[in-house]
């Protein structure tokens, strides 16, 4: 072999050849040759277009710059004139528990939080009654009690139908339609009604010229207009309009899921298996028609030769998923016809491949890059985040707790999903920190809540869901969670300067959920709730309840309602003295109720909502609020308006920790890098405190009071 042949062509030589070719092409003297087809043509054109748009915007910015700067200087001077800090960062960790935090800090497992405790503040943070996330975060942002912001639970009760509806927002299709052939075409936009009242404190900051970046604070859907950017959090629906409906596509047959998911058949066809993702009901049919067609996206699964994974084909997109792993976020389009389509994203998890094939598909999230409903303010903010960092979960309750509860996902798969979302949120937080050098930056992480809900069973010695399992075998999932939180706080502290005020807050703490209490069953057995003749139990949503003989009922997690004449459609309890007497009777009977079998106090407090709340929306509140004791919560059936024979039951589900109990048992946490001189801080105080530190006076109607904060840096 010749010497030349032995020498491999170097990278430089390759580059030289490319350069020569390019030079030849560029300098060939014919006008036609400048064009190299649509591929390169698009590249060049779109590059110029981008530069052109950037140039246009720069020109606009340059021309308007003096005016904007003057205005900003004026507004900022006004806003920051009395401000005690230039920037405040609030890290929200939903459900972070002060007892666990203190324990892990004492054990040296949370060094960054311990540093905050030592140099600043660590305290319990009094929560709302009931201590439920949408209630507590609404109070956090509005500075008022539920009687003024109208959120009492995830669900509210329709007093006419005795059916539940989502308390935070209502999504309605356009009222007017036009019929064209088989289609009923909506005229106008989908209407999204925000049920939460009150004004978030960042709106007040915005009016004073202070910019805010707000990420995933619960009950911010639909997003409202203000001076800043906001990504909506808890209560954003999935594409079906639900709060999260997964699907399990399987060749095996099985029963329907209790809630939160659907089972979809998967059929073999040659080398592939075919199934579909159920989507929303077509918008091109009358919404009242029960036969309205459900839109679907079909997909095919091709198991790999070694059965270690499968290729999945969805529309034009194909990808390979390994057994026991998730795909990335896959865009899906539900086509209704006439060019109408809904855009979503979902992830596929290959659960099983032999002998049966099972693919779990997450709830179809609204695509943040093409949002069919507004999930951010401005609407382009979610597009910006999606383009900058890739697709991310937009669903309010993005972590699929139902799938773990129904054994569709195992612990590991659930955790991978949780921390995937958590990491996406972290990227958004750090971007917001960078983009908000002055003003307010707030980000709420849901992972703390979901992981504690689902893995509390491993903390307890004798939880019904892990009974018989040795304590030493139980994974330290929650400890790991707190370590991750601590590590994140450490990174945030490194990112901010010492002049920035940093607060870590949670809306409530956590406790064991070992026993379920069916309040409807108790009401039935104590003569307050009646069933139809011959019935000893009732199905979901009071299916077999005889309202003409029912005086009280419960729906949701902590509320108890009287069946009041003139308020409920079939009410029988006279308002006024009779209703008051009935409330007093129920408070007396329920307070201190014992769970004899478990040796626990099931109910440690019952509050009359007339005493607990004040404000214009108290009429929508339940009549009584039940505070469950340690280890007890409303049973799964009770929440869904079901009446069972048994009043108490063991909770054997993975969902094993909870906070929908007596608020005194589950305060949240408050960390701060400054000393806060307040004995009993409450979540309702956050809004007035934030206004005060930015030099604004909290409005008189606020129920919270601003804390005294020591601003010298320790």
């Amino acid at each position: 072999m010749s010497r030349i042949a032995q020498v491999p062509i170097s990278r430089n030589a390759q580059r030289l050849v490319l350069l020569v070719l390019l030079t030849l092409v560029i300098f060939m003297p014919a006008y036609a040759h400048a064009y190299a087809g649509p591929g390169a043509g698009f590249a060049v054109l779109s590059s110029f277009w981008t530069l052109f748009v950037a140039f246009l915007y720069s020109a606009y910015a340059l021309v308007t710059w003096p005016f904007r700067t003057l205005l900003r200087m004026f507004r900022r001077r006004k806003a920051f004139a009395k401000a005690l800090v230039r920037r405040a960062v609030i890290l929200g960790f939903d459900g972070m528990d002060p007892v666990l935090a203190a324990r892990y800090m004492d054990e040296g497992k949370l060094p960054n939080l311990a540093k905050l405790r030592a140099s600043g503040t660590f305290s319990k943070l009094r929560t709302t009654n009931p201590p439920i996330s949408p209630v507590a975060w609404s109070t956090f942002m509005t500075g008022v009690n539920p009687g003024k912001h109208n959120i009492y639970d995830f669900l509210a009760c329709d007093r006419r139908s005795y059916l539940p509806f989502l308390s935070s927002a209502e999504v309605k299709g356009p009222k007017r339609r036009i019929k064209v052939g088989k289609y009923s075409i909506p005229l106008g936009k989908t209407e999204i009604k925000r049920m939460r009242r009150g004004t978030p404190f960042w709106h007040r900051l915005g009016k004073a010229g202070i910019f805010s970046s707000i990420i995933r604070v619960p009950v911010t859907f639909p997003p409202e207009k203000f001076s800043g950017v906001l990504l909506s959090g808890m209560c954003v629906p999935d594409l079906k309009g639900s709060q999260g409906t997964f699907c399990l596509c399987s060749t095996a047959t099985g029963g329907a899921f209790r809630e939160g998911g659907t089972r979809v058949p998967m059929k073999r066809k040659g080398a592939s298996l075919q199934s579909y993702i159920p989507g929303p009901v077509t918008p091109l049919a009358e919404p009242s028609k029960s036969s309205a067609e459900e839109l679907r996206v079909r997909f095919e699964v091709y198991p790999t030769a070694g059965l270690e994974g499968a290729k999945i084909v969805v529309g034009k997109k194909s990808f390979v998923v390994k057994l026991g792993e998730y795909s990335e976020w896959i865009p899906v389009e539900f086509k209704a016809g006439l060019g109408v389509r809904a855009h979503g994203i979902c992830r596929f998890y290959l659960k099983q491949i032999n002998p049966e094939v099972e693919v779990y598909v997450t709830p179809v999230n609204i695509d943040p890059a093409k949002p069919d409903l507004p999930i951010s303010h401005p609407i382009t903010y979610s597009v910006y985040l999606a383009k900058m960092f890739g697709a991310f979960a937009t669903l309010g309750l993005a972590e699929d707790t139902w799938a773990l509860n129904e054994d569709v996902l195992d612990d590991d798969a659930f955790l991978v999903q949780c921390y995937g979302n958590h990491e996406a949120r972290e990227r958004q937080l750090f971007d917001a920190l960078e983009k908000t050098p002055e003003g307010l930056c707030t980000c709420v992480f849901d992972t703390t809540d979901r992981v504690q809900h689902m893995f509390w069973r491993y903390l307890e010695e004798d939880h019904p869901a892990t009974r018989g399992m040795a304590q030493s075998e139980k994974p330290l999932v929650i400890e790991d969670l707190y370590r991750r939180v601590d590590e994140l706080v450490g990174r945030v502290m490194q990112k901010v300067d010492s002049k920035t005020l940093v607060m870590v807050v949670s809306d409530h703490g956590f406790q064991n959920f070992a026993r379920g209490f069916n309040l409807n069953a108790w009401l039935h057995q104590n003569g307050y709730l009646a069933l139809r003749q011959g019935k000893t139990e009732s199905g979901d949503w009071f299916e077999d309840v005889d309202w003409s003989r029912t005086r009280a009922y419960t729906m949701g997690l902590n509320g108890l309602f009287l069946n009041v004449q003139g308020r409920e459609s079939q009410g029988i309890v006279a308002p006024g003295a009779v209703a008051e007497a009935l409330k007093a009777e129920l408070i007396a009977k329920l307070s201190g109720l014992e769970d004899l079998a478990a040796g626990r106090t099931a109910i440690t407090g019952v509050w009359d909502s007339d005493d607990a709340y004040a404000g214009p929306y108290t009429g929508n509140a339940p009549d009584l609020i039940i505070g469950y004791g340690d280890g007890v919560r409303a049973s799964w059936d009770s929440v869904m308006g079901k009446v069972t024979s048994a009043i108490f039951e063991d909770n054997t589900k993975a969902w094993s920790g909870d906070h929908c109990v007596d608020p005194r048992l589950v305060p949240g946490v408050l960390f701060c890098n400054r000393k806060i001189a307040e004995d009993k801080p409450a979540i309702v105080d956050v809004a007035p405190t934030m206004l005060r530190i930015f030099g604004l006076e909290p409005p008189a109607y606020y129920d919270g009071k601003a804390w005294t904060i020591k601003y010298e840096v320790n």
Partner: protein
Amino acid sequence: MQTTTTLTAVISGTSVDWPLMITLAASVAVGLGMVVVFGFTSNQKAIKRSKDQIQANLLAVRLFQDQLGAVLRSYVGIITSLGCYLRLSFTPLLIVILPLTVFIIQMDRFLGWTPLPAGQSFLVKARVANADALNEITLRGSSGEEISADVVHMPGSNEVIWRIPALDSGSQTLKVSVGGRTVAKSIVIGEGSYPRRLSLIRLQGSVWKRLLDSGESPIEVDAAVQSIQVIYPTRKISLFGFRMNWIVWFFVFSMIAGYIFKSLLGIQI
């Protein structure tokens, strides 16, 4: 309106604007072909990522307009991502540019020029190696008859230009003689809607130069005549009230076709 007329003409087979039809067909074929090649030869994921980054940074400029630092960082991001995007488009560009260039040159021979109109005069230009040869240069027709014509000698550039009448339609040959050696050059005279392949020049020289400019065999290296050029009228294609060179329509239609095919095939460009 014109498109409808053209379509009707195609269907009926009468008065078809063949140059336009060929341009359209070539545009669609090239649009499809180039998009497919681009899809196969480019890093689709990286291109999407770059485009997303460009869009994200543009949005950031708007979203955080009052944060000067953020805006400046976004401009840097736009420039960086654009550079990355162009770099990623470079590989497929290199792969398609040579065959496409050859294709366009060949198409230009058919569509860029029209045959010499019969009955009108046209220019023939010859270049010789030595200015002395200009005194003995002669021009003859296909059958060897000497053509009398207005002639201009340009010793400074060793060129001679004849203005001669185009008489009979069809393919013909011009013969330029110097010192007993004759070099022929083909010409096409006549009307007709169907495009003919035309060679503007016959010359000595490199393969590249001939590839770009000539459609004929090279002149022998030792011949005194270096090149013979015929000035054909340029062809304009009319559409939507605009008369443009075919390459303009080709550019427009292949871009439209490319846009449609990239959307249909889900290819990132």
